[in-house]
């Protein structure tokens, strides 16, 4: 069992959990992920590591409540335990030699952008962070990202906070002004990462996307997380999760991500009804 030491709601649907997991914390590096299971009936949920503390033996994850499994996980409180946490899995972010990087995060993906930005800062690179959200109330980690970058731009789709529009607008402007990025790192919803890749492609700037496909074991066994990269089949769990964004087949990845969407909708409904029943009992 793995104890939840800290729980914080970053916005209405996004949760930060700091979990006691010494074995995973020992080797954790930015860009890697862990798999958690809330309880004995729980789904294995892959989450990229948002934060870790080797000495304290803790791993931090940030996730959005999207289906039954994440609802169960979100219902756990500080001091309670979750059944399983395994990791670190996947290949860490490659930051060596990078001098000037744009880190582009979207929504809950900013949770993964943050440790990458921090790592780049530590290594002395110039970091530009661009964080995009749907609307003001979805904003997370604003102060943390600002502190982990030399230049910080925040966008919202509806203009309710920061610059109006998506992350590609400021990125495109900076590229147009001749900012010599030697890499763009992007993590967020698949359509956003695809758009970022298309923004950088004409200028030939190396672009890396962190993928978060459906997964079960996370060790190369199920083949569920397969992603087509440059025409080759890659397993995001052992070959990734980061790949050259100019080579990823994002359209295929979007189709694959929807494999269980009907089940997820049903499971969400079931959980919501359960919660409703629970609250009625309390009335």
């Amino acid at each position, binding site marked *: 069992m793995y104890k939840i030491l800290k729980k914080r709601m970053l916005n209405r649907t996004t949760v930060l959990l700091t979990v006691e997991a010494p*074995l*995973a914390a*020992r*080797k954790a590096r930015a860009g890697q992920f862990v798999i958690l*299971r809330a309880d004995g*009936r*729980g*789904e*294995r949920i892959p989450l990229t590591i948002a934060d870790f503390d080797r000495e304290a033996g803790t791993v931090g994850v940030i996730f959005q409540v999207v289906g*039954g*499994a994440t609802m*169960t996980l979100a219902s756990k409180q500080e001091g309670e335990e979750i*059944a*399983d*946490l*395994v*990791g*670190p*899995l996947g290949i860490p972010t490659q930051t060596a030699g990078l001098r000037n990087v744009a880190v582009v995060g979207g929504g809950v993906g900013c949770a993964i952008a943050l440790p990458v930005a921090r790592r780049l800062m530590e290594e002395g690179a110039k970091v530009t962070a661009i964080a995009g959200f749907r609307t003001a109330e979805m904003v997370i980690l604003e102060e943390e990202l600002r502190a982990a970058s030399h230049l910080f731009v925040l966008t919202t789709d509806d203009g309710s906070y920061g610059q109006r529009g998506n992350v590609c607008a400021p990125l495109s402007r900076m590229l147009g002004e001749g900012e010599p990025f030697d890499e763009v790192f992007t993590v967020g919803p698949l359509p956003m990462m695809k758009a970022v890749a298309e923004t950088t492609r004409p200028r030939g700037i190396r672009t890396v996307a962190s993928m978060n496909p459906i997964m*079960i*074991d996370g*060790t*190369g*066994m*199920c*083949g*569920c997380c*397969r992603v*087509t990269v440059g025409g080759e*089949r890659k397993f995001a769990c*052992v070959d990734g999760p980061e790949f050259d964004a100019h080579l990823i087949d994002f359209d*295929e990845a979007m*189709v*694959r991500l*929807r*494999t*269980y969407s009907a*089940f*997820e909708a049903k*499971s969400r409904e079931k959980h919501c009804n359960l919660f409703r029943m629970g609250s009625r009992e309390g009335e």
Partner: protein
Amino acid sequence: MADLQVKTRNPMPLRDAAERTADFREVALGYDDETAIAEASRCMGCKTRPCVSGCPVGVPIPEFLRLAAQGDFEGAYQKIGEASSLPAVCGRVCPQERQCEAKCMRGIKGEPVAIGAVELFVADRHMQQGGSKISLPKPNGQRVAVVGSGPAGLACAGDLAKMGYRVTVFEALHLAGGVLVYGIPEFRLPKHIVRREIDELCAMGVEIVTNAVAGSSFTVSELLSEMGFEAVFLGTGAGLPKFMDIPGENARGVFSANEYLTRVNLMRAYEQDSETPVFRAKRVAVVGGGNVAMDAARCARRLGGEEVFVVYRRSEEELPARREEVQHAKEEGIRFEFLTNPVEILTDGEQNVTGLRCVRMQLGEAGADGRRRPTAVAGSEFSLAADCVIMALGTSPNPLLGRTTEGLVARAHGEIDADGDGRPSLAGVFAGGDAVTGSATVILAMGAGKRAARAIDAYLRGLHK
């Protein structure tokens, strides 16, 4: 009548096919005492013991059958235990018709003794009576790490514990058992049986650490240095699924058998309250001909598949699956498309699977492996409708360990290069099972684990002389 008794075996009582496809409970019902005694009595006790030569771990078969025939079921269990670590598992999943039972002299003029069915009976009887009272030797204080808790790892850990070693088993998943829990379905190997076998190991002092990925949470060299182990056994299996590299293979509704079976078996996706989804389809095509293909097809049937068919490129004779599984699959309404190979997975505009484009195959000359090579028949393309395709084409060893373990040599398909005793050229490191051989059987992996346990013992004795 007596003559008939001698020639034909006592059939394993099975649940009715229509009833069993409605749930995941075990198909085999097992013998009762009288039937077990009657079947064991069919053994002629041949002096040459041909059956033993057919067993990869050399179970003393005539001896255990003789005890069972006398009604000494516990004695029979202990006799099997001299050679096998997992009798309740092997009785259920071993391909006996190709091993011990293939060599049985009874089989010349009639049916061989149902050795597997008697083994299953005595193993279950043993467990019903509360398992073993194990007398362990004095602990010798030396620590051995076993990586992977599948059949190879469990067998190795059990034997080492009996020799007095302090064994820790590391498992990447949240539950121990390897392929016994994620691969083989409940209806063929109930998970409480695996749990019991593992509980027996724990009772012998074996420590099991789940959620621990070798090559990632820790390296092999760390096990041998700061983590304090004097030897390491790698039984990491062959988990990496193969695909066909045909168009449409990444469409929605195409799964590796590993994914499909892991969702069903490990994650129990067939149970109402499991949070893990599984793709429920009406027309399911399973590509491949091994036990894994049969398992996937039979799970698909139980998950509401109305038409489930196995697509195999060779003919029925070459099917690598156990005969019993093929028979059970047929009883359950699984259809077979033999001499058929998919060339494309067909999809609709939204990338949902709609079918398979296939070619008919013919068998030519035998290849290097002695099996007749299938080749495509020109102009024979045709389509099969399906809304789900499961690829059961075999697996290769996981690359994770090789990438992080300096000095560990991988062969062509990622298998660990090791000698007959499971020694790769790395001090203190031993390996066995599918990780070394590529995908094979539970019993072969168990045998490799046992051989490695002896080699580890010899190595550590040498070290401490």
